[in-house]
């Protein structure tokens, strides 16, 4: 199983698991299977969000999250103690979600980021200054929705790197190992993902301009 073999390369790079987690894993591997939920519980939210960020559908995300957890349970004996369990689990969830996406051919939205590939230089658009970031921004459902729309509009190769790095806070090395791409590709895609999201969101989020049309070239506030 490529996905689980792939986890081994992450394992070598990741920090050690914490002692409690390590003890739990050992006990489960020795037959106390009922402890598995205790092991998974701290990460169940991240498993769901990883799946949701890729699939963009709550029902599919939940189903994939469940499948990922069951797969982790089945293959826990293959997990080595020097790894971070959460990284391994998220990797399984990401792979499950990617497989579901391929199966369903559900890339329905026209992704942003088509105008330049990895080799070219990405030029950020000239948008309004977006300095203000109210701490309560995420309390507003329309802002959360907008952020999810922006994320969904990225091409999957950018979205996946961004999710693993900026949402799940994996290291560059862990992202590279999880997606089986080079460290340089991770950094390039991450930069582009961030800039594309900024291009998408800045005109909408800039103070006083939320909900309006983005600035057009030649219509800048400065």
């Amino acid at each position, binding site marked *: 199983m490529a996905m689980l073999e792939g986890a081994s390369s992450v394992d070598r790079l990741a920090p050690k698991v914490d002692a409690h987690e390590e003890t739990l894993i050992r006990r489960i591997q020795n037959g106390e299977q009922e402890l598995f939920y205790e092991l998974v519980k701290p990460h169940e939210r991240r498993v769901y*969000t990883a799946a949701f960020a890729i699939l963009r559908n709550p029902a599919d995300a939940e189903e994939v999250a469940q499948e990922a957890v069951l797969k982790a349970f089945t293959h826990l004996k293959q997990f080595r103690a020097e790894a971070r369990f959460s990284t391994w689990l998220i990797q399984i969830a990401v792979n499950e979600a990617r497989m579901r996406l391929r199966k369903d051919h559900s890339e329905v939205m026209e992704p942003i980021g088509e105008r330049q590939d990895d080799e070219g230089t990405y030029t950020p658009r000239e948008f309004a*200054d977006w300095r203000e970031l109210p701490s309560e921004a*995420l309390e507003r459902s329309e802002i959360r929705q907008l952020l*999810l729309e922006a994320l969904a509009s990225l091409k999957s190769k950018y979205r996946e790197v961004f999710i693993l790095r900026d*949402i799940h806070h994996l290291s560059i090395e862990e992202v590279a190992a999880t997606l089986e791409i080079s460290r340089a590709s991770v950094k390039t895609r991450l930069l582009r993902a961030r800039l594309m999201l900024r291009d998408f969101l800045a005109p909408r989020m800039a103070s006083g301009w939320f909900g309006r049309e983005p600035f057009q070239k030649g219509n800048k506030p400065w």
Partner: protein
Amino acid sequence: MVIGCEQVWQEISNYLENEVDPSLRASIEEHVRGCKRCTAVLDGTRNIIQLYGDDRLFQVPMGYGWRLRRRLADYMPGRRGTAYGWLIAVAALGLFTATLGLARSAASAPPTARSEHAQPGKGIPSGLTVLVAGHGKLFHIAGCTFIHEKDGPVRSMTAGEAIKEGYTPCTRCLGEYLSRLANLVRKQAWAVLLL
């Protein structure tokens, strides 16, 4: 070192993650101070990282954790069903067994005797000699006025045999007999104690 906008954009991620050397960092900061466009790009990118790194962005569906736990419990080998499920199964089995037992007892047990005359003999010495009338349903001790000759020929047998054949004790003669016998035993016991 003087750098241009394009170089700033290429290094923005590294800059925000503190992965640039001090001289490049100084150059980026110097450029940004004088460039509105790069300032906007830098601030916007920083905001993106902050917003998407916030746990509040993704909200899991209500009951997600519970459903995940249940699915996992159902999936575990040898643990098809939760403890709660087992409890329900045992309770259902108990209920079924009790119902079955009740139905059996109702179907096969003899109808409850309705009068004291129909009660089976209890506490009667099985070796006690009793009399039964041929067509009667009771057994008596000798001298009972309720032995009727019209019921057929009278036979003698032990109380144990009479009970086995389905006769029930006559409450007049045997009730009185047993009562007297009990009193006699009680008196003898007290006499023994007083001595």
